[in-house]
């Protein structure tokens, strides 16, 4: 299969050109090399999975993508431009949003306020207007609230709208975190193990939300996941890492039948 000019998925979605390209990325922490010379791309509108055993460098890769880590070598091309060294909030303002492996919400705040926080970069009235919460700032808040309410409706979390997220079960917190990422209206959504610690039913719900996000908003999604079954069902293309190296890249079927991937997951006699 050639991916040069985009492609059509088995379920009939059209995937566009390259949105982000990683070229020969190497990331070191002192003497430890977390990522070694990895290249791959993420295309407009696709669901791209990054898999690999523990310590393979998946989360490091995600942190490179959203500008939290700065690779020593290689370059990142986002929307056709080579990216400079930048901070995570700049990545956010370029339309990259993410969720975290360990839920990172404001525990004491309500679901609504947490998701509202995801709108921060879209709020333009200055701090003093916001403090007054009057006139233009109020109008702006109402506009943002409308967007947030659509997300609440989309994720079916109306019943926990006003509950502090600290009191919610883990599966729901994950959903709220997805909501906060969606509130930024990202063009690229990074999900770090969205299904970790969930039961089968919660996994099914989350899978449906991820597919719906991709379908309804056309959001490009890059996700890290351990559950191979989930990855195979969700992803259009999969990149597999092991010990910081890329060992496979392709459709789920190709990656699944790749001998290096099988060895990495099941272990091999050294």
């Amino acid at each position, binding site marked *: 299969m050639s991916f040069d000019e985009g492609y059509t998925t088995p379920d*009939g*979605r059209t995937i566009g050109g390259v949105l982000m390209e990683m070229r020969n990325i190497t990331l070191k922490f002192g003497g430890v090399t977390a990522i070694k010379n990895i290249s791959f791309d993420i295309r407009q509108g696709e669901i791209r999975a990054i898999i690999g055993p523990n310590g393979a460098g998946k989360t490091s890769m995600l942190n490179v993508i959203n500008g939290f880590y700065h690779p020593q070598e290689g370059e990142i091309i986002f929307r056709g431009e080579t990216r400079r060294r930048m901070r995570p909030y700049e990545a956010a303002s370029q339309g990259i949003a993410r969720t975290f492996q360990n839920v990172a919400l404001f525990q004491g705040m309500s679901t609504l306020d947490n998701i509202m926080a995801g709108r921060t970069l879209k709020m333009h009235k200055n701090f003093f207007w916001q403090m007054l919460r009057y006139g233009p700032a109020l109008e702006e808040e109402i506009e943002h609230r409308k967007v947030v*309410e659509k997300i609440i409706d*989309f994720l079916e979390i*109306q019943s926990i*709208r006003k509950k502090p997220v600290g009191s919610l079960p883990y599966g729901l917190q994950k959903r709220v975190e997805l909501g906060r990422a969606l509130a930024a209206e990202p063009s690229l959504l990074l999900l770090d193990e969205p299904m970790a610690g969930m039961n089968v039913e919660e996994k099914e719900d989350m899978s*449906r939300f991820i597919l719906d996000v991709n*379908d309804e908003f056309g959001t490009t999604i890059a996700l890290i996941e351990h559950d191979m079954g989930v990855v195979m069902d969700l992803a259009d293309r999969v990149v597999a890492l092991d010990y910081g190296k890329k060992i496979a890249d392709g459709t789920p079927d190709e990656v699944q039948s790749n001998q290096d991937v099988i060895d990495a997951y099941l272990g091999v006699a050294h």
Partner: protein
Amino acid sequence: MTAQAAPQGDLDTIPKLLARNAKLYGDRPAYREKEFGIWQSWTWAETQVEIRNLALGYLELDMQPGDHVAIIGRNRPALYWAMVAAQWVGAVPVPLYQDAVAEEMAYVLEHCGARFVIAEDQEQVDKVLEISDQLPQLEQIIYYDKRGMRKYDHTRLNALRDIQAEGAAGHQRLEPILRQREQGQGYDTTCVMLYTSGTTGRPKGVVLSNRNIIESSRVSAEFDKLTVDDSVLAYLPMAWVGDFIFSVGQCYWTGFCVSCPESAETMQADLKEIGPTYFFAPPRFFEGLLTAVMIRMEDASPIKRKIFNYFMDHAKKVGMRILDGKPVSLGDRLKYAVGNFVIYEPLKNQLGMSRVRIGYTAGEAIGPEIFEFYRSLGINLKQLYGQTEASVYITIQPDGEVRADTVGIPAPGVEIKIGDNGEVYYRSAGTFVEYYKNPESTASTKDPEGWVATGDAGYFEEGTGHLKIIDRAKDVGKLADGSLFAPKYVENKLKFYPNILEAVLFGADRENCVAFINIDLSAVGNWAERNNIGYSSYQELAGHPKVLDMIQSHVEEVNASLATDPMLNGCQIHRFLILHKELDPDDGEMTRTRKVRRRIIDEKYSDLIQALYDGSTTISTTTEVTYEDGRKGSISATLEIRDAKVFPREAKAA
């Protein structure tokens, strides 16, 4: 004969009532629905436009008079419109239980030969598509919520909004046809078809005419003086006759506003925001609410708890008398007024019942303590007795004659007689036309004079004329020694304990009675938490020895009270066990309205019943369970069987 009641003017169909309401109450709200965190509302005039456009769209899809249109989804204005629009073009709406699994739906859809299905969302569309090869007559599926539907093959699928837009676009051409269809409807044409959940056998399609629905709505609205200013929350299944009478019949008759909750989980919060004046809930709801209040009071500070208990005791003493307008001393009245300010009003507000003028409960017996709790707060909760075949109303409690142990006097326009075997018969303007495609059942239920057998055994109390229901006539039996066996009566006594969710009694033609118990997970779970008892599942908690002890004490209390009952003292429970799973409609053990299906339970748990009678103290068993998505699994458990203390029967007072 009352069954020939004539329409008032030309208001003989629901669409005609809609036209009247749009003219009379054009700018008053007809529907509200909470969406995106805000209560959206539609006036009667706007509602008429929405429904007309949909009806025109139906014509564009070639919907014919007499077609059956299945409606599947939770209570939403658009789905109510879908029903009325179907009536407008002369079709028959058939609302289904939205939580039914696909195979259950297949039977009903096949039986009524539905050409159209209106589904709320992707979940419901998926279910219908799954069974569509069993449904040769199905032509179109119309869905309301577009989410996730983009990738579906749309040759037989349409969005409801698109249908409305097409109808609106073609109104010049289609409106004459619609007017013609409207003329073809009258008091004797079918208004709606509702499938009875059926504690035995397959569900039956109850055909209700416009006369049935409109007369029942008119008479009951007059009885309770419902007006256009009333307000209700529609949250009970649309497939249930009660919802159709309250949210369609009485709503269109009086013009009051129907509010729909945001989702099933937000119902309690939405109830509080809307504050309905007219409210209906099954006993289970009131029990659950009371349990929730009591659990929260257990966790409250000691001072708050003291104040609460002090005033609730006072309410228990005089609250019901004040509500019934009986003489109460000035001091007690003053104290009640203070309690009202401090406890009753804030509590009612929390429950969403501060504006409730008339509340009803029906379907099952309600525990006297539960009933009295609400009434003593000043909530006018009453009971009624009804069924689908009667368009709800058979008996009803008038204000001032409300009691926990009767179901009231015959509703206006209803005649009642008691058969030789104790079975209750009725006839009224609400009496159903027939069971669809089932003349045998129609003939065996409704005689040529219009008397309908309810299947319930009951009697009129002397002096007051109130009807008392004992049990399903076919469930009432005899023990081996000839004494009366009325399982539901005993089960209700058990279920009045907050810790017991469900109970099933066995004993017909046996030496003595034994029982299955389901514990209430929220009540017992809270108790376990406070007593530092750890558990990971229902099954583990149900098998805990301390839980068994607690349930045993409840069973023995019931036995003690049964021993004093001259008619039913043979029904004392000798042995019992706590089931390892909750009885569930998905497993066919209960109906969707949560009534126990005895025959199925008898078969499914025959090993457990045998163990209860053969004296064993433990029993290992494996049970099949059905998950919400229709997949099956099984759980196994070893259950402990307990002997309960029985009390000497008091002398039969004949």
